[in-house]
């Protein structure tokens, strides 16, 4: 496929991988260039070496975005990297940071008579304390999967006697589309359409990670699609205040390898900058039309609880008072309270928070692969294919092989 296959060229990948190995071996002279073996052998070796050489810990690089995590696993990229580079899978998976209480709210709205509850597909399976939206649908609620908020608007037009709610979820990537949908509903004077707003902003979430005392990160791969909307400038505080280099990165495997090379090069050269690997998509100033729509419709919440991150202050987003008529929270009287999500999880053994913040690997969680697995996910990280636990679960099976 044109403009896709070019970004999956194995020959170019090999070259980038060699360059990354060269840079890494320059920084960790004692570690020889590693020959390619199975990912499992490499994984267990990297765990060993982490324990043995606490003085020369591997570089920890967080790919913030779940889309990047997905690419890493889909193409087996981690198996190509040197031991001295460790990927930490960040919280940039909107489904994964969704508190169970919010899913309960969704179910409660969907259970109201006359409601058509619309959502992106991957929110369907996220467990609430009572049930998931998939279960609510099976129990008779009218829950419909849509591919765009505009599809939900079309459903609202076709069903004037029903209340149509769209579950507005995600980082800045999806915010312009939900904001523009709301504005369109407003223009048309649709009275039966509302958004259940659970958006969250990227820079504030990153700040929450950076202020975590347990965290030891050496740099970030920043999300390409979010940056396409917000531009590069909002990341300046990461380099300025926290001295972590950052590279805005695309989603094809060559994008990731090139961005890793850029990031490791920054670290090797002692630089700390916001660089843009995804310049073909991400303009420095972002998408003005999208940003205008966001600012028109949304404002920050005073308090928002996110799964695994706790209260991260100004990261949560709500609909402005001027558009209250389209706010499902107000329409259905949903108290957006800070329900303590950890107790809602039920199983006290879950370590979702530690995994999300990158201070613990999924397999260090006592519930991982046991009571929490892709068939019966307890934590949200096990639900989405972008969630690091689900990815590790599939990947970790390799370990049993060797």
């Amino acid at each position, binding site marked *: *496929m044109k403009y*896709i296959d070019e970004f*999956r060229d*194995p020959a170019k*990948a*090999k070259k980038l*991988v060699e360059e990354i190995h060269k840079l890494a071996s320059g920084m960790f002279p004692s570690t020889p260039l590693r020959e390619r073996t*199975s*990912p499992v052998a490499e994984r267990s070796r990297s765990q060993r070496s982490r324990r043995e050489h606490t003085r020369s810990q591997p570089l920890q690089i967080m790919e913030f975005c*779940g*889309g990047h995590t*997905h690419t890493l*696993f*889909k*193409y*087996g*990229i*981690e*198996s*190509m990297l040197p031991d001295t580079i460790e990927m930490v899978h960040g919280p940039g998976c*909107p*489904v994964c940071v969704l508190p169970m209480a919010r899913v309960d709210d969704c179910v409660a709205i969907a259970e109201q008579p006359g409601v058509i509850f619309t959502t*992106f*597909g*991957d*929110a*369907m*399976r996220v467990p609430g304390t009572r049930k998931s939206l*998939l279960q609510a649908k099976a129990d008779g609620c009218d829950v419909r*999967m*849509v*591919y765009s908020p505009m*599809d939900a608007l079309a459903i609202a037009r076709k069903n004037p006697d029903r209340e149509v709610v769209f579950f507005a*979820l*995600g980082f800045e*990537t*999806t915010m312009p589309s939900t904001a523009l949908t709301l504005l369109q509903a407003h223009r048309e004077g649709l009275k039966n359409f509302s958004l259940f707003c659970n958006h969250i902003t990227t820079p504030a979430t990153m700040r929450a990670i950076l202020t975590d005392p347990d965290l030891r990160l050496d740099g970030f791969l920043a999300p390409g*699609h979010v940056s396409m909307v917000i531009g590069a400038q909002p990341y300046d505080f990461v380099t300025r205040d926290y001295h972590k280099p950052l590279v805005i990165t695309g989603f094809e*495997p060559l994008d990731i390898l090139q961005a890793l090379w850029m990031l490791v090069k920054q670290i090797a050269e002692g630089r700390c900058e916001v660089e843009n690997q995804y310049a073909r998509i991400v303009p420095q100033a972002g998408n003005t039309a999208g940003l205008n729509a966001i600012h028109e419709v949304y404002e920050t919440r005073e308090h928002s609880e996110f799964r695994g991150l706790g209260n991260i202050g100004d990261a949560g987003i709500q609909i402005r008072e001027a558009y209250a008529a389209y706010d499902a929270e107000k329409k259905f009287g949903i108290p957006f309270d800070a329900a303590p999500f950890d107790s809602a999880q039920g199983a006290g053994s879950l370590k979702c928070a530690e995994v999300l913040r990158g201070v613990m690997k999924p397999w260090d969680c006592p519930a991982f692969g046991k009571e929490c697995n*892709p*068939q019966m*996910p307890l934590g949200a990280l096990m639900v*989405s*294919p*972008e969630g690091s636990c689900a990815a590790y679960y*599939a*990947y970790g*099976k*390799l370990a*049993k*092989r060797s």
Partner: protein
Amino acid sequence: MNLSGTITLAHGSGGRAMHQLVDNLIRQTFTNPLLEEGEDQARIPLAGLVAQGDRLAFTTDSYVVTPLEFPGGNIGTLAINGTVNDLAVGGATPLYLSCGFIIEEGLSLETFARILQAMKLAADEAGVQIVTGDTKVVQRGGADKLFINTAGVGVIPAGFNPSAGRAQPGDVVIVNGWLGDHGAAILNARGDLALDADIETDCAPLNRLVDAMFAACPDIHCLRDATRGGLATVLNEFAERSGVDFMLKEEHLPIRTPVRGMCEILGLDPLYLANEGKLVAVVPLTAAQAVLTAMKRIPAGRDACIIGEVVEGDGHVVLQTAFGGERIVDMLPGEQLPRIC
């Protein structure tokens, strides 16, 4: 029979309307001597069966697809080919099918007639006869337009014994062509993607292809049609039951560009998309070329190719990505859901 109007509860009541529907439409479309006997059961002479093999194969499947009609076929073609293929991949020569309809009142007679025609054509192409059946009509909301159940019997020739548990290290994995077409065609036909893709179902009978493969290599180790859950699910079953690993090479997987494109947009994996005319065979390396050559002579096997091999292990399917990495291709926990971003 006049095909204007719709099917109503009266067509399932046992009275005159039902007789008209069954005799003048269904029986006339499917016509064959066993059906014409008009008894409550088909009476199949044993002698003809015994002459063809040493075991009877018996299978059933129900068809509930939405929409009923889609590019390249409809629920009727699926209902015949699906059951034919379930017999065929067991090595059986498919012979006789039963057919049960559960119709939601309001289905247009014209649509129903078109689906019956498609079933007749598919049955003729596969060389099977529909010899017994049943029709029920349920109230609106009691079913989704039309459900079809077909059961089938066939005879397995002596010496043919493919099984999910027989894959051995060194064997090679063969598929008979493009993967994921049916799943992609159905997703596209539902229309809510608003994608302009030209994808047809691959729905086709596989019995003649299996005959040719058996003639080329009587010792085919594993054979399945890759329907729901796609190639990935079949190979996981083989891997688990045989206690071996499968190594697939991504660059050898035959996936059409529009199918790949659709999967890229929706965040789906074509390895899990359904097929309705694709089989997966695990054959000894020594027989691989002979099997491939034999397959390519049959239309349903024209695009046959080797996609991987069996290695020692304990039940995993591993994909060597074209990019140079490796990943596990596990069974899906549930339905594949599109991703947000």
